[in-house]
């Protein structure tokens, strides 16, 4: 078993090409497309949030399985860790929005706020916004750093204490993310539509990013297998990951419909305004989002056989990833660019390719920093030897 990952030249080439393509597309978009300052900032927010959310989702994946005493995930733990440990990159990518606050957030224009936004000023004000951002990022980075460090330590030490300590930090992380996932979603996404509010929004966003993380883990697992690693990951593991993607896609849809149905039903303008904006100006994307985030994985992964097919799983995961990118797009664009940005252009694609390529670089770099499977993990053996019920 080759458990030490090495970045090959091919990988480097592909990713460099990605970075260059991204930059080129952005430049093209800026030269030939119509763009506004808001749109640039919106793209920075979108992709920055995408990257940081993947890190958070990945560490949540690790942490929640550790405290739930789950065995099977040990095989993919390091991959999730690699995604998660790059929280610094996500932080770097999202922090710049502080400079674009006035383009992104209507509430930051304190000079002309209506009565309701004045009422919200206790929360929606720039200093507090930045303070919260610092707290989130500092907290996440610290806890993730600890988790990663302890996990890497287990490669060399078989002391169970390390494992239990890891579990403690995982619990802390889960508690911290339980609160901050909601508040950060309110801060960065929901407050774009400053008047609108929905209590479910935080959870909805979180489940979205978690599904997305699972899709990315699946993609990475399959890519690494294609590169010749992770040969111990068999059908059973893929089946489990597939079940995850399937189940959480349904759960995402459940939250989506919960939020939509309740707002649709009561039809109170202060709430419907959010959906009315999206349904009128982003009609097609609005429905496409539901189709590729729910309908596609639901039917693609329903049967047991499909969950065990590598290519089937890979393509579904890629579609789901696109779906959740679109979900973020729909969360951010209508409130920032309005109908002017009612579409996806080279600019959006360029930004995403650039950010994702950079992120992949970082992930691969992290993968080299330890064994691809935690060596002295107490569930190490258990995770290779199990079967799904038929």
């Amino acid at each position: 078993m080759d458990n030490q990952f090495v970045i090959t030249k091919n990988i480097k080439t592909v990713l460099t090409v990605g970075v260059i393509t991204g930059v080129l597309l952005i430049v093209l978009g800026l030269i030939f497309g119509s763009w506004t300052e808001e749109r640039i900032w919106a793209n920075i927010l979108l992709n920055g949030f995408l990257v940081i959310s993947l890190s958070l989702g990945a560490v949540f994946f690790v942490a929640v399985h550790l405290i739930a005493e789950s065995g099977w995930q040990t095989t993919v733990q390091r991959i999730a860790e690699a995604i998660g440990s790059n929280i610094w990159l996500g932080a770097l990518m999202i922090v710049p929005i502080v400079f674009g606050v006035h383009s992104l957030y209507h509430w930051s224009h304190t000079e002309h706020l209506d009565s309701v936004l004045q009422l919200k000023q206790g929360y929606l004000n720039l200093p507090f916004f930045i303070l919260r951002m610092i707290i989130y990022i500092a907290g996440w980075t610290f806890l993730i750093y600890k988790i990663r460090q302890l996990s890497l330590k287990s490669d060399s030490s078989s002391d169970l204490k390390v494992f239990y300590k890891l579990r403690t930090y995982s619990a802390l992380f889960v508690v911290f993310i339980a609160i901050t996932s909601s508040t950060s979603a309110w801060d960065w996404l929901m407050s774009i539509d400053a008047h609108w509010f929905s209590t479910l929004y935080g959870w909805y966003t979180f489940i979205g990013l978690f599904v997305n993380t699972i899709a990315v883990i699946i993609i990475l697992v399959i890519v690494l297998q294609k590169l010749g690693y992770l040969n111990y990951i068999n059908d059973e593991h893929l089946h489990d990951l597939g079940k995850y993607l399937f189940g959480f896609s349904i759960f995402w849809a459940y939250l989506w419909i919960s939020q939509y149905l309740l707002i649709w039903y009561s039809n109170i303008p202060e709430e419907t305004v959010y959906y009315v904006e999206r349904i009128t100006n982003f009609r097609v994307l609005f429905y496409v989002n539901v189709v590729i985030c729910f309908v596609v994985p639901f039917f693609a992964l329903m049967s047991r056989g499909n969950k065990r097919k590598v290519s089937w799983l890979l393509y579904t995961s890629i579609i789901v990833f696109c779906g959740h990118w679109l979900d973020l797009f729909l969360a951010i664009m209508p409130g920032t660019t309005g109908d002017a940005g009612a579409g996806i252009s080279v600019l959006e694609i360029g930004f995403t390719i650039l950010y994702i390529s950079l992120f992949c670089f970082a992930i691969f770099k992290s993968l080299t920093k330890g064994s691809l499977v935690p060596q002295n993990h107490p569930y190490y053996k258990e995770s290779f030897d199990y079967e799904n019920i038929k």
Partner: protein
Amino acid sequence: MKNRQYITGVYYDDKELLDGIIQIQKSDIPIFDVRTPFPVHGLDDVLKFKRSRLPRLGFVAGTLGAILAFVFQVWVFSSSWPLNFGGKPFFSVPSFIPVTFEMAVLFAAISLVFGFLIKSGIGPGAPALIFDERTSDNVFLVVLEFVDDSHEQKIFNVLKEAGAEDIKSINPSLQNE
């Protein structure tokens, strides 16, 4: 029709049972049945059972339930008697989702259970062909069937070789007749 006769062999451990069955299978004697007190992991693979078609039944029934429920609701609201409730549209899809979902689950669940019962030939008051009452307690029983008495001894030997204990020829009792 000839009176069926059976030879049973007892195992007290599921692991030994699996090994024993593999042993018996080498002898070309068809295994009539294996009785266990709980679902033994891997037994279905060893006995080469086909995958059950119950999932497919559930899917079809669920889909049918969903379609029926949805179509019925649409028909009621927009064709049979379109009533204005709180200004909602007659074709109010979000309102139809809960009932559609519930009916899908109900159809699927009922069809699964009935599919299972019918396929397994069991049901309220169905007779049970019991070889050894301990099979619901702690005994794993391999049941082999023979028609020709001459086979009897051979089967005895095979079972013995396969590590079975308490091997005997048996006429099963029918419960509940």
